[in-house]
């Protein structure tokens, strides 16, 4: 068998694969479109929330699953996006935001003024996290900080940001964060129809990002990323700078988290430090691990499954749901190290 044969055979196999694999995207697509007709506004809203988390998870899947950067501080980027959006929403109401009133702030801080512009707010929500990630990435990846060091550093970053946000009550709403939003553009956020629309927006954004990320993973760059994950030092001797590769990926995943945060705020109606600290950041990584970190679909699936499981368990067993959540997670991690997608893949090839 010579080389061209190898290639041709691979091509043929791929085509057959594509046909078979197309079934799943179509099924998922149908489900997404049908969801508003299958569930009430409250449940649909929860689903939209899970999908927001799925966007963050997608970024984690990219950075961690593909690139080996275990980021435990993704909440930081999510939070930056969320706060940008929240500031815009708060300024929509006109007058001084409610929390400034009870915090004794008399004049709108200069930092806030540009956020009255929705374009600025949205751009900041995405570019702000990317910029921060680039800065951090350049700092740490150049110094070859990696593995557990990187993980714990990002965790510390999340903890530090929470403390900063909490401490600047007049500027950020402190522990409370920001809540009580009314309108997004001209739509009343309390209306079910607005929420349905938001759901579709989130779903479409997720789908687009997923396709983009998949393209990236399949490209040479994706292979390079895996190579960096498995042998960063060796990659240097192939003539690549791993720090750049990692930084770019980290920035992309941060941008995703930022966008997710911006979508989350109108959907859920609150942003607070509790959403971006160590625990929520870890929860999302855990979700990715459960879904299967090596497949992007696993990241998305994990976020939805874990989000749903948390809601369902806590509603059924207000007292003991943590046991179930913990047990589910520990079992998956122990029995299926590659997560749900790993199990699916094994079942498919067997």
């Amino acid at each position, binding site marked *: 068998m010579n080389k061209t044969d190898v290639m041709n055979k691979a091509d043929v196999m791929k085509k057959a694969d594509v046909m078979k694999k197309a079934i799943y995207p179509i099924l998922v697509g149908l489900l997404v479109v049908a969801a508003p007709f299958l569930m009430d506004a409250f449940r649909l809203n929860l689903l939209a929330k899970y999908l927001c988390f799925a966007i963050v998870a997608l970024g984690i899947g990219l950075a961690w699953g593909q690139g080996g950067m275990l980021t435990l501080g993704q909440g930081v980027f999510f939070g930056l996006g969320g706060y940008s959006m929240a500031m815009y929403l708060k300024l929509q109401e006109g007058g001084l935001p409610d929390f400034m009133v009870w915090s004794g702030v008399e004049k709108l801080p200069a930092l806030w003024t540009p956020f009255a512009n929705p374009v600025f707010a949205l751009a900041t929500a995405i570019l702000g996290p990317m910029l921060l990630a680039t800065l951090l990435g350049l700092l*740490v990846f150049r110094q070859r900080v990696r593995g557990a060091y990187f993980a*714990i550093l990002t965790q510390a970053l999340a903890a530090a940001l929470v403390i900063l946000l909490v401490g600047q009550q007049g500027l950020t709403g402190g522990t409370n964060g920001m809540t009580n939003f009314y309108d997004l553009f001209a739509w009343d956020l309390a209306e079910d129809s607005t929420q349905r629309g938001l759901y579709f927006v989130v779903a479409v954004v997720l789908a687009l990002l997923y396709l983009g990320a998949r393209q990236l993973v399949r490209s040479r760059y994706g292979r390079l990323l895996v190579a960096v994950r498995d042998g960063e*030092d060796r990659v240097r001797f192939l003539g690549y700078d791993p720090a750049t590769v990692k930084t770019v990926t980290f920035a992309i995943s941060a941008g995703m988290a930022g966008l997710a945060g911006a979508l989350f705020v109108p959907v859920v109606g609150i942003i607070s430090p509790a959403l971006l600290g160590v625990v929520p950041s870890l929860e999302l990584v855990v979700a990715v691990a459960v879904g299967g970190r090596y497949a992007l679909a696993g990241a998305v699936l994990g976020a939805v499954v874990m989000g749903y499981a948390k809601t369902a368990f806590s509603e059924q067993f207000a007292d003991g749901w943590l046991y179930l959540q913990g047990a589910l997670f520990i079992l998956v991690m122990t029995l299926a190290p590659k997560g749900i997608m790993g199990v699916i893949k094994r079942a498919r090839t067997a």
Partner: protein
Amino acid sequence: MEAFVNQLPIGLSIGAVLLLIALGLTFTFGQMGVINMAHGEFIMAGAYTAFLLPGLFVPSLVVAFFVAGAMGLVLERLAIRHFYGRPLDTLLLTWGVSLVLQQLARDLFGAPNVQVKAPDWLAGGIGILPYNRLFIMGLAIASVVGVWLYLVRTKHGRRMRAVMQNRRLAATSGIDTGRVDMLTFFIGSGLAGIAGVALTLVGPVGPSLGTYYIVDAFLVVVAGGLGQLRGAVLAAAGLGLLNSYAEFWSDASLAKVIVFAAVIAFLQFRPQGLFTVRSRALS
């Protein structure tokens, strides 16, 4: 000025607490590559041990070592041993375990804090430093020396390091890696138990106890160079002092942020922490 001078022993005593909570963590990471997020809950188990043995403070240090050690042993056998070579995964796994243990404590001992009475001989102090702080410092030093002797002076210590450095080779060199793993995790967790008893002198004893210390403990471990005993000692002292002075000049929140920032800045110069093991091989 007096207040300023006082901050020095205070910083060292903060460092002693940091060292005590980070020691077991450093140990398990250094010897096994396991990042144990449930370490905080083993500390909590130590604290509850002291609660269950009222009036027996010193014996409870010993009992707590075995209680927390036994919990670690169970965790290792049931789950961790499936994860060797995947240290970052153990971080997530043990985090799940920590949540479950917290809730378990809530159900066993109730949600509110419980009372652990400090022994009378620890009341009072010298100058600004209370006896209980001095006791913690002494305990931290004793634990470090004990661990150091164990690692450097005993066969078991060397065996442990061999398993960590090359698991496969250790097995084919005749070392029972499974037993070494159990023992290592037992000791690392046991150290958390000791820390837990000591912490009852200065802090709350409740289900959330572990969560208050875990991030700080990690910072010490990172700044010290994962798994490096010397590093952990210096890092704990350094962070303790930095914390005490930063808080003195600003406030507790800012001090925390300053400590985080300092660690990040520090890693710019020493990307692998204070003390590191270099190796010729490509990772």
